[in-house]
Structures are given as C-alpha cells and as structure tokens.
C-alpha cells in the first residue's frame, strides 16, 4: 500500500515539472507567433535590399528553440525567418530585426551597455520593460497574452507599426 502511494507520488512529482515545461513552451510558442505578427504589421525604415532573411534574436536559447520550430518556413516581407541566439552586444545585435528579452534574460539586458538600438524591435515580458528601453511588453490578462506598446519608441527606432496592431495593444506613451 505504501509502495503504491509512493509510486503515485513519484509519478505526480515527475508529471508536475513536465506539465510546467509544456506550458512554458506553449507560451513561448504563442509569443513567437506574436513576434511574427508584430513583424508582419511593421515596417523597418532602413531595410536593406540585400537582406536575405528576417532575423529574430533572443539571448534565451529555450525561446529560440521553440521559435525556430514554430516559425519554420514562415516569411516576413517575403523573407524567411531565421531565429538565432545572440549575445547582447551591438555587433551581435546589428543582424537582428526583432530582439526578444525573456524574463530569464532580463538581467543580461539590464547589464548590457547598449546605445540606442535602431531598426531593432525590442520586445520583453517583464514589468517596466518599456521603461528599461524596450518597445513592446507582453503581459497576461485573463489568462491571455496581451501586450503594451510604445509607438514613440518604435518610431525613434525607425520602425513603423500598423495601427491595426496598435489598437490591439495598450499604448503606453507618456
């Protein structure tokens, strides 16, 4: 009897982390989808004609793994999406069009000494991320992923986002 109870407990303990990981992956997949849609409704003013791919960057390997899987064969402005892991240096980031800072990599973002990032849409998911230099921040509302956006900062970064998207998010300009 005790063996059975112990066996059940062990199975439960094994399943709980497993379910949590799956939920995180789903959330990452949804956020990857959001980022993909942000990219579709936005224009980068300094887009180069020689550009051959649309680069989605994140210092978070887990996110990039999920995003790579979710966005495989997806196109933005006829360019295939390439999800890569980057270090938060200006040289590394220069190849990115979208940079997603997960809550796990916020400390890296905060510690990175970066100047104004042009032509890079910076998206985060932590509290006060926009005040910390981001353009868009995900948040949960009623169990659904929602976002707030700063059109001013996007404009300063030479990115124009469609009003169709802007009206879906919470605008947080001063």
């Amino acid at each position, binding site marked *: 009897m005790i063996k059975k109870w112990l066996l059940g407990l062990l199975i439960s303990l094994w399943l709980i982390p497993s379910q949590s990981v799956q939920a995180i992956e789903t959330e990452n997949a949804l956020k990857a989808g*959001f980022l993909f*849609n942000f990219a*579709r409704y936005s224009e980068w003013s300094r887009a180069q004609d020689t550009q051959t791919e649309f680069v989605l960057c994140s210092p978070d390997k887990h996110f990039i793994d999920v995003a790579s899987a979710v966005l495989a064969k997806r196109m933005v402005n006829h360019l295939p999406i390439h999800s890569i892991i980057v270090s938060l240096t200006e040289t590394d980031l220069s190849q990115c069009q979208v940079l997603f800072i997960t809550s796990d990599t916020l400390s890296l973002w905060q510690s990175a000494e970066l100047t104004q990032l042009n032509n890079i849409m910076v998206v985060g998911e932590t509290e006060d991320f926009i005040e910390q230099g981001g353009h868009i921040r995900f948040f949960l509302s009623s169990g*659904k*992923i*929602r976002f707030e956006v700063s059109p001013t900062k996007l404009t300063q970064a030479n990115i124009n986002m469609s009003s*169709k*998207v802007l*009206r*879906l998010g919470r605008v947080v300009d001063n």
Partner: protein
Amino acid sequence: MKNIFSLDTISKKLLFILMSVALVSTVTVTLVFSAYELTSAKREQVQSLQSLSDMLSPNITAAVLFDDQETIKELIKPVLLRADILSVSVTNIENQVLVQLFAKNVSQDNLNNNTDLNNISTLLSLDNQGYGYLTIIADNSYIEDRIAFYIKFLLFLLLSTFAVSLFLSLFLQRKFLSPILYLADTADKITTSHDYSLRAKQHSKDEIGQLATCFNSMLDTIEQRESVLESQVKSRTEALENANIQLHEFAYQDGLTDLPNRRYFYKKLQSMLDVDDMHFALIFIDLDGFKEINDTLGHDHGDLLLHQVAKRLRNCVRGNDTVARLGGDEFTLIIEGINDVERASEIAEKIKQSLMQCISINGAQVYVTGSIGLTFYPADGRSVEDLVRHADQAMYLSKSKGRNRYEFFSYIIEEQAIEKRKIIEEIRVALREDQFVLYYQPIFDLDGINVSKAEALIRWLHPQRGLIGY
C-alpha cells in the same frame, strides 16, 4: 356615363391614343426601371455589405492573429447598426466561431428558419494566407425599403406623368383638332341649313388646310350644280304645271266651246250637293235644229255655232254660275241660290230669247232655238242622278211640247215617263211573246157594198189589260 367613355368623336379617339401612348410608355419605362432598381438594389446591398466587410477585414484579421476577441467584438458591433444586418460572425480557418453577434430580437433559430437571406463571407487573410472568415448575414429589408420608396416615387411619377400627359393631350387635341372640328362644324351647318354658300376658313397650310380648300372647292361645284339643277327643276316644274293645267283642261274643259265639260259638271254638281243648306236651279238645254245646220252648212259651221251659243249662255248668267257643255248640242247651267219658279223662269226666258237671236257664221245667218228643262235642288231630287234625270225629263217635255220653250220638272212628268218606259219594256216582251194580233178592217166604197181596200190594224193582246189598240 357610357357616352363619356365611348369613342364616338375624333377628339376622344385622339385623346385615347395620346394617353395610351403616354401610359404605355410610362408603364414600360416604369417596369424596366423597377426591374433595374430591384436588381440594382440587390447588387448594391451585396456590394455595400462586401465593401463593409472588406473595410473591416484587415483590422479583424489583425485581431484574429492576435487572438483578441474583445477587439473583434468592438469592430463588428457597429455593423449591426445597419437595419438589414441580422448577424455578424468571425470564424477561424477551421470554421470555429470566434465571435458571433446578433441584431436585436434575432437569434440563430431565426436565421436557420429564414432561407431568404444574403450571406456575405469574406476571407480574413494576410500575405495570401487565410486565417478565418468574416460572415455578414443580412435580410431583404434594405431592398424592401428601397423598393417601397421607389414604388412611392414611381406612383408619384406615374400620376405626374398622367396629369402632364392629360394636360398635354388636351392642349395638342385642341391645337390639332380645332381646324378639323371647325371643318366638321361647317359641314354640319351646311347639311342642316342646305346653305351651300357657306365656306370653311383655311386655318393652316397643312393637310387640313388642303382639306378645307378641297372642301370649299367641292362646295363651289355643288353650289354650281345645285344652281343649274334648281333652274332645270324650275323649268321642268313649270312645264309640268303647264302640262297639269293642260291635262286639267283636257279633263274638265270642252275643247270646242272652252266651257266645262261633262266630267266637270258632274263633279261640280256632286260638290254642291255635299254643301249643307245649298239650293240651286239646274237647267238643261238642247238646241233645236242644230242637226240641220250641221248637215247643211257643215260641221265647221256647227262647231262655230256651238261656240257662239256657249258665249251667249255665258252672258245670260252670273260669273259664279256654271255653264257646261254635256256633249253634242246639249248644254247645262247651274244657277246658285235660286229655288223659286219665278226667278228661274226669268233666267230661262232670258236664255230662250238670247238663243233666238240670229247668229252670223262666216257670213251665213242662222237661227237656233233651245228646248229648256229646269229642276230645283233640293225640291226635285237629292242625288246627282235624280237631278240630271229630272232635268232631262223636263227638257224632253219642252221638246215634245213644240220646242223653243222651257218646262219645269214635276213628278207627273216622271210618272208619265215611267209609264212610258214600262210600256216600252212590255212591248219588248210582247214582241218576244208574240202578243200582237193583226186585224184587217175592210174599207167600203161609198155605196156601202163594195170593198175595194182594207186597212191593217195591229192590236196588242195584253195579258192583264186585254186588247189594246190606238
């Protein structure tokens, strides 16, 4: 009421034609426009809904992509303000309903029960990839409202067109028909009055003007013909009247003496008998010795003699008395207002004396006398036959009493005449029955002995009267 609507005048016919053309044209145009409007309304509704759907779909697509159902609701809710839209729904690409809103008082059951609905479905796509559908379901209220308005407009248009057409038709009718009506009126006046001197005025120089000219020309011809015809009729009438007069003369006048003849005499006598309280004397005259004059001097002289006698008889009576020749040497006179023997005797005597005067014919001196018989109406008879017969009897009495005298009728004469006529009739029977018997009576000489001759005597052995001998 029936006369109002019967097409019995050219005015009504023209009005009917104009109004028919106007109505048929208007109704045709109305039907064509109605059909077009109905089709157009349906097409416009579909276009309008499609346009609305197209306007909404980009934003809804974004909301679908970001899984924002609240925004989808916000976006599609104003669409329901349109009266004809019953439901708006957004589905994902697997046709799972994300959001569906219904108009007031509309449910899914209503939609399922109503088959006559317009369903506009728009693919929600981005970069050529579909993410769902925006479906708008609308009823026909938009079309019905528009058709209702259009029907009111068309009714107004129809009534206006009818009124304007009527006014225009009346105006055109008056303008175009007045010369024809004037022409018809003139023709009617001419027909009624037979006054062919009337003419129609030429009001226009078109075909109706030509018609008026031709009409006047025909009237000229008719007037000329009528004039010729009238003169011909007049001359023919005169000729006919003359012929009638001549016929009358031939019928009632004696050609030799110019006196009324026997036919006239009998007619006159009958007409006088038909008048109440009439009285007159009837005189019959037979000339004595006329046959001898005729035989010795010839018929020409006899005719001249009769002519002279007639003139003398005419002079013996008043103008209103009648002198007629019955034929041969017989004359008769009707003296009106005479019913006494004394006055009649004076006239008879006057006639007798007048006839006795010598008559000169072509240098020959001849003498005639007259046997005169007189009767009175109504004393001597009440019919033409009685009067004539009695006058004749009186005249024969005068003749039998020695001629050149006059006798009045009396019923004794008639009885004698009847008796005579009876005896004559019996003699005819006696001849047939062999009632006459011959007797020979000897004639003796003076000596009383010898009989040298005898006389034959005929005696009538009458069945009733016995042997009669004169």
